[in-house]
């Protein structure tokens, strides 16, 4: 006796994301403005603080935008915070963004 045969369908949903280009990288960090964007977990405030000290010592004139200018990217207002990021970053003159913390 032969086992019954089944033709099984693909169960996953169709992907919607298209690969997007990353932002152009900087030629130097000297004199540039780096924004810290934080999800308010995993001691990112301390990590950013140490990064600021080290980067400032290495790259003269580098400036930083504190994470509290942007709000929590992982809280009850996260969708608004993330949606408002592009405009805020432009208004504040950010040249680059470092977003953390993950685990």
């Amino acid at each position, binding site marked *: 006796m032969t*086992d*019954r*045969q*089944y*033709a*099984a*369908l*693909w*169960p*996953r*949903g*169709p*992907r*919607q*994301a*298209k*690969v*997007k280009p*990353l932002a*152009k*990288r*900087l*030629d*130097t*960090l000297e004199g540039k403005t*780096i924004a810290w964007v934080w999800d*308010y*977990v*995993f*001691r990112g*405030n*301390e*990590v950013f603080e*140490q*990064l600021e000290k*080290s*980067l400032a010592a*290495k790259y003269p004139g580098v400036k930083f935008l504190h994470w509290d200018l942007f709000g*929590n990217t*992982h*809280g*009850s207002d*996260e*969708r608004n915070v993330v949606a408002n990021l592009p405009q805020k970053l432009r208004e504040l003159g950010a040249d*680059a963004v*470092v977003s953390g*913390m*993950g*685990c």
Partner: protein
Amino acid sequence: MTLAKAASQGLGFPNIAVAPVRGHPGLQSKEALQQNVRELTLNGVIDNLLTMPAAKAVGGEPGVRDIVCTGSFEEVNEYFLAHQLSDGLPVVPPTVEKVEAFLKYTDRKADEVIGVMLPDNRAATVWSVAVNGVMAGCRPEYMPVLVAAVEAMADHAYGVEHSGNTPGGDNLIILNGPVIKELGFNYTQGVMRDGFQANTSVGRFWRLCLRNIAGFLPHGNDKATFGNTWRVVVAENEDVVKKIGWTPNCADYGFAAGSNALSVGRYTGGNHISSVSGAKPEDLMPYIADAVVRQYSWQLMFSVGQGYDTLRPLLLLSPIIAETIAGGGWSKQKFREELFAQARMPARRFEQILRDWTQKPTWNLKEEHEAGRIPKIFHESDDPERLVPVVWKPADFQVVVTGDLGRNSIYVFAHNGVLGFPVCKEIKGAKTAGVARG
């Protein structure tokens, strides 16, 4: 794999650069963390800001109606296991015939997109709902319930993208309406136990959708530390609710009593509270309130901090407990008000959990209140021993009547706040078996 790497593909940035942090920041001294940032993270940040990562393509995959495997029951299941399409239990092979049987129980087009879900950024179509419903062992007539469940999953307020977070909480579906009896959901003894096809298979369906549609895979972008298995559906005992003059769970979300509706929410755990004793509601409340407070530790961050007013504790009351409370003349609203008044902890402890034990940055109830971010009830004095609530208002408590008709128990769930916020959806077009359309 870090979460950032795992989630980046679904966001369209498969080559995004990540600067590593050595170890877990929560277990390092200040000095060790600073040293690790200087020695490792710093170089990663500099490289990522100055050097463009190499381009990375996303691999192709089958189309949504493609047959991916033909074979025996065992062969199909081996394929689904090997390709991470199954939860580890045997699945019902999703054939075209079985899927079409499910589609007869909805008026919606098979290709209709119910929502798009992170982290994989995949569309949940009516078709994919049916496919995963078949796999989970659902009956075709459950289809309207499955569609409503995925509508809830796709609701931005629920936040499905957080379903792979560290605490690994899992969803609970609460069901209301005539559909409970029509489709044979258990709403009495052992309501959270597997063994009832409707409750069990719909619960399993939810987890399969998280895997196959949202894209959560353990050892990939499901970062649960321990995790949970999926929860079976809890149906409310509407006979008892009506008898005691209360309103069903769906009414708290704006649906009339008697509506077919389901609510969802994510819970990191829970506890059965036995022997809730007393002849009057006043006798029962101290024990119930104490049980609620004991369920809440780090989750307080969803009341103040990471989320503001997003904590929604859920209590299941066994029928005779609800009857005793109602017998004292208490409405559901009165019960919640008393719970709000009694389920409290010293402010000192509230702050200690958030600030000291879990190392959250600056959260102090006085500062939060003075900044206008939380209500005065959290800071009515500077006395550290003052009692503060775990939620902002009585309506934040979810109360459902269900379970064994003869036992004096409650069950309290620890809610995961904004990372699985409760939402409720109407179940449209539910029909009993044998009345499929067409």
